[in-house]
């Protein structure tokens, strides 16, 4: 398997695709029917842009009903998430690698203390 890094895929985008990707990231998710209007392109061109971004795995797309019409919802991929939200100071979420989530565990108390007093 050849692994093409996402940043490499991103470097090869056309201007329209790049603008589309920015729009999806900034909005945090957008319906396809709003996507092309916001970008100020035709619906056909809008769907080609989405198609290309989905293929490059830069956005996720799922079917949905919006304003009574079948359309797609376009959202950023998990790669775009801010994973530092799992950190409190230099401590990672204590639930990683654990089967069960115990909100009253000592490790989580420590994490919350870090959050309150070290950030």
């Amino acid at each position: 398997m050849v692994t093409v890094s996402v940043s490499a895929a991103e470097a090869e985008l056309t201007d329209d695709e790049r603008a589309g990707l920015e729009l999806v990231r900034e909005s945090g998710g957008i319906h396809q029917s709003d996507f092309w209007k916001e970008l100020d392109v035709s619906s056909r061109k809008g769907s080609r842009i989405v198609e290309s971004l989905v293929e490059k795995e830069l956005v996720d797309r799922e079917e949905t009903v919006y304003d009574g019409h079948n359309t797609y919802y376009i959202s950023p991929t998990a790669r775009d998430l801010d994973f530092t939200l799992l950190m409190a100071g230099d401590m990672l979420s204590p639930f990683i690698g654990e089967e069960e989530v115990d909100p009253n565990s000592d490790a989580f108390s420590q994490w919350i203390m870090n959050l309150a007093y070290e950030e």
Partner: protein
Amino acid sequence: MAFEDLLEDPVIQKYLHELVGPKGMPVAAAPPDGEVTDEELAEELDLELNDVRRALFILYENDLATYRRLRDEDSGWLTYLWTFEYDNIPENLEEEMYRLHEALDERREYERNHEFYLCEICSIRFEFGEAMDFNFECPECGSPLESMDNNRLVDAMDDRLDALEDELNIDADA
């Protein structure tokens, strides 16, 4: 080496370290392109075969590696060919963000709905009921327990919950 862009992220490094531990980290931190055997990895990284296998199975359990088995026709021995599946790391961390959100939400309820007392000497916190049972004296050292305000904890939890909801598009009122 593959997945360089992901491995540059310090949170992802910390995540892998948390899963495989310090001994497994050389394996987790340098995923090769394509397939590799445990023996090749042990040789290349100058590690004990057992440590390599342990790390690979932890990665496998977390959907971060897969293997296929090949049988050598002459010796009948099985060879495991491993592939690193680090494309799954972002989805795993997304799931962890949801789990963290759920725990914070539950813990915030508890912090809001209870009163706490603190022994400042031992740094032990007691719920109101416990403190009353001890006559507001620390069971360890006997010093008086002082009422403790947890607003700072709750505020910090509020902020992080807001940030997680914003990032994950969670509707807080849902």
